[in-house]
């Protein structure tokens, strides 16, 4: 283990000096493209640094509370002192996934670094893949991630340590759902730079589940940048489960490029975390591409979630559909910023954007900004945003049928969330999430169960204590 100590330097200075001092260790094994990009990205970082809440795009998200903390950066993998195979045990009932695990930001090496599954899908460590598939890296790596977007993306490109690489060749339909599990387990405050590269060939398909979890109660800052290329006619589904401790920060930036007639569906499910910033940039670069961007956030205590969704309709005949729903309790706060950009001549675009929120306490806060920027006339674009409470009439209906106030509340909140849950197309996962939402709403998603992996026995389904026959 070789963590670079912070020496009380501000985080940005610490990162810059860590890069300059340990450049040799960091670039070891890099192909030249990756190495070159590190240097340019560092220059971007030096000029832009970390954003703070005075930046328009970061208003209402006090990221400086995180970036002012002391973190260590692992430039080499730490030795695992627990039985990790035991930890990385997925117990979504009846759900057989192909697991890829990351520990403290490094590809967890239980078998081999890079493997080809029976159906031809290549999965492995980012580091290992760049040497095995230099041509793919040459073509795709760093092509859509914008280092100019903010300091987080830039520093990620500069300091990228490891991540997951997935390649689905043309015409291959991945049989099993891939599951990336990221764990943080270190007795120090860790700053992690993860970089994922996912490439789907023509007419291929893949579904991916991406779980962010933490084990201990140390604070960590995970900075993940994911680039996803979806070729002509390919189908891709992404489920993100975010369930970290209250001290953790997660900055998740996903760039997706879709070619003609491809379909992408992302579902971001945020259950617990100190501060989460999810950025999803989708470029619809081929006619007939379709994107569904869904999300659900259930926050309490003083947690904060920020979803920044940008969809660029660059070509005609593309459709997109965005729906984010959230329930905020206690002092929790949320930001939603949807941005649909319809380029000149991207005619016959159909874009829909919606954000619904329920505030449960006077202290909860929501800031929502559904933006449209449109340069083509033959388009159908609409957006909506609502902020409110549980429907009093519905509440009355339930109460008048003898359902307790607490139960009626649960039922209504669950109904509110079910729009998103019902969109999960993998049935066992849907049932599992359904259970988690119910538990979360009852405040029973307890510490040992906070992580999707440890949710114990393949238990019976979770039910509210409600006599439905009365309804």
């Amino acid at each position, binding site marked *: 283990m070789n963590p670079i100590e912070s020496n009380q330097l501000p985080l940005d200075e610490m990162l810059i000096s860590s890069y300059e001092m340990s450049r040799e260790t960091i670039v070891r094994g890099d192909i030249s493209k990756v190495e070159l990009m590190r240097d340019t990205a560092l220059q971007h970082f030096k000029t832009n640094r970390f954003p703070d809440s005075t930046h*328009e795009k970061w208003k*209402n998200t006090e990221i400086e509370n995180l970036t002012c903390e002391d973190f260590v950066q692992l430039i080499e993998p730490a030795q695992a002192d627990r039985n990790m195979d035991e930890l990385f045990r997925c117990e979504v009932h009846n759900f057989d996934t192909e697991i890829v695990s990351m520990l403290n930001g490094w590809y967890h090496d239980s078998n081999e670094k890079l493997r080809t599954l029976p159906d031809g899908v290549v999965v492995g460590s980012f580091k290992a893949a760049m040497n095995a598939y230099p041509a793919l890296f040459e073509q795709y790596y760093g092509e859509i991630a914008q280092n100019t977007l903010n300091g987080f993306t830039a520093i990620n490109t500069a300091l990228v340590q490891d991540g997951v690489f997935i390649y689905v060749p043309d015409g291959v339909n991945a049989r099993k759902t891939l599951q990336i599990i990221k764990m943080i387990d270190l007795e120090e405050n860790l700053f992690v730079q993860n970089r994922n590269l996912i490439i789907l060939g023509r007419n291929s398909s893949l579904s991916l589940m991406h779980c962010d979890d933490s084990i201990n109660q140390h604070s960590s800052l995970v900075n993940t940048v994911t680039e996803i290329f979806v070729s002509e006619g390919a189908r891709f589904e992404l489920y993100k489960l975010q369930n970290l401790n209250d001290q953790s920060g997660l900055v998740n930036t996903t760039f997706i490029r879709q070619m003609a007639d491809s379909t992408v569906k992302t579902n971001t499910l945020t259950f617990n975390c100190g501060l989460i910033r999810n950025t999803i940039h989708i470029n619809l670069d081929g006619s007939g591409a379709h994107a569904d961007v869904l999300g659900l956030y259930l926050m309490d205590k003083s947690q904060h979630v920020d979803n920044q969704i940008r969809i660029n309709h660059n070509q005609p005949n593309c459709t997109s559909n965005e729906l984010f729903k959230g329930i905020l309790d206690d002092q929790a706060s949320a930001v939603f910023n949807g941005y649909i950009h319809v380029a*000149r*001549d991207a*005619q016959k675009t159909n874009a829909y954007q919606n954000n619904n*929120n329920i*505030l*449960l*306490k*006077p*202290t*909860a*806060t*929501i*800031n*929502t*900004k*559904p*933006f*449209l*920027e*449109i*340069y*083509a*006339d*033959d*388009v*159908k*674009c*609409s*957006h*909506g*945003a*609502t*902020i*409110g*409470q549980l429907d009093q009439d519905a509440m009355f209906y339930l109460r008048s049928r003898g359902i307790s106030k607490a139960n009626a509340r649960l039922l209504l909140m669950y109904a509110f969330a079910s729009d998103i849950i019902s969109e999960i197309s993998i049935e066992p996962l849907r049932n599992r999430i359904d259970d988690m939402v119910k538990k979360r709403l009852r405040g029973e998603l307890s510490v040992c169960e906070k992580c999707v992996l440890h949710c114990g026995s393949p238990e019976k389904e979770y039910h509210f204590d409600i006599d439905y026959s009365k309804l």
Partner: protein
Amino acid sequence: MDNNPNNNILEEVTTGEYKYGFYTDIETEMAVPGLTEDTIRFISAKKEEPDWMLEFRLKAFRHWLTLSEPEWAHIQYPPVSYQDIIYYAAPKKKKELSSLDEVDPELLETFNKLGISLDEQKRLSGVAVDAVIDSVSVKTTFQDTLAKHGIIFCSFSEAVRNHPELVRKHMGSVVPYTDNFFAALNSAVFSDGSFCYIPKGVRCPLELSTYFRINAANTGQFERTLIVAEESSYVSYMEGCTAPMRDENQLHAAIVEIVAMDHAEVKYSTVQNWYPGDKEGKGGVYNFVTKRGLCKGRSSKIAWTQVETGSSITWKYPSCVLLGDNSVGEFYSVAVTNNFQQADTGTKMIHIGKNTRSTIISKGISAGKSNNAYRGLVKILPGATNARNFSQCDSLLLGDRCGAHTFPYIEARNESSIIEHEATTSKISEDQLFYCNQRGIDTEKAIGLIVNGYAREVLNKLPMEFAVEAQKLLSITLEGSVG
């Protein structure tokens, strides 16, 4: 789209001419270009202002020096050189005017051309007018009638002279000079404007109206309007504006402040028709305006209605601060951009008091190569229990070279509030046109019909006199055959 016969019509629709582009040769007195403390002292001295006013201006100027121009709006323009602008230009006055006969006939002619007759005709239509040309108020009609009710309606300079206590109390209470770059600039150099005071319990019997015109070249217009509505009063206020056609851009940075006390109601309607620039986007007025109303008392109400057709750049967000419990804010807007016009306009509704309600209806129409953005903020503060907001922002695109944008900001800090926002962007659908054609309405008329119908919700909110003008304007701006 290529074989669509509508293309020609849309082409025509988007190539209208500006009808108020004439220039009147009136003797004008001007300050030297540039902005220093001396300029401000000059303006203040010219207007024979008391010391407190000069102090206010200088404070604002010193603050302005520390600010930089805002860049967040979705507009692009070459940097404005604030030192090349003439900050004071006034039609030369011989002496105080006491009757219409003494008004410069050239000036009267100007207003007649604009369709704003300051003379007897106006008496018939029952509208009191305060006309501001370049920087100075030239004529206020009906002062006597209004005085009978205790209503004060006069130029801002007169108000500073005759009612200093009212001006001192309210000026800057809604838009402080520290508010933003353009508000600070205006506070430093404003030359005139209108002042209106409605005493307790009075329902203003006339529609009050101000007409602004930039005439002289290279001047900026910086007027300031202050409306104070005391308890249980009511007033409907209208504002219109035009400017000559010039190749260079002209700057207009105004401030409008409204204060509404308990149960008072103020309706503020604007038909903004500054020169929008020519078809190549040359010239036109930069309209950087700060308008804000404060619903200070309980159950007070402020309604903004605006029809924005002019200006090469519009940067304008008429806002309501809903401080009193049960107060109501409304915003109705039609913004039309054509050729190279750019508009970034919308509103702010700040809910502070309990049971406050706000409604936002915004209709954007973009044509030619213009960009039209709605930008609005709805903010519910923790004390605003049971606050309610409804917003609807629709955009209509005429042509495929223009842009329509929506940037709503919604911030809620109170769990009992209900906020709804919806927006759509579309073009005139072929179905709608087909329906009209099929019933014997030709395409030109059909487009006119549909655009008018689209804006109807807002036009209906305008006072009668204005509604007619606004409808005409809409057809001029989208001229060709629409109307």
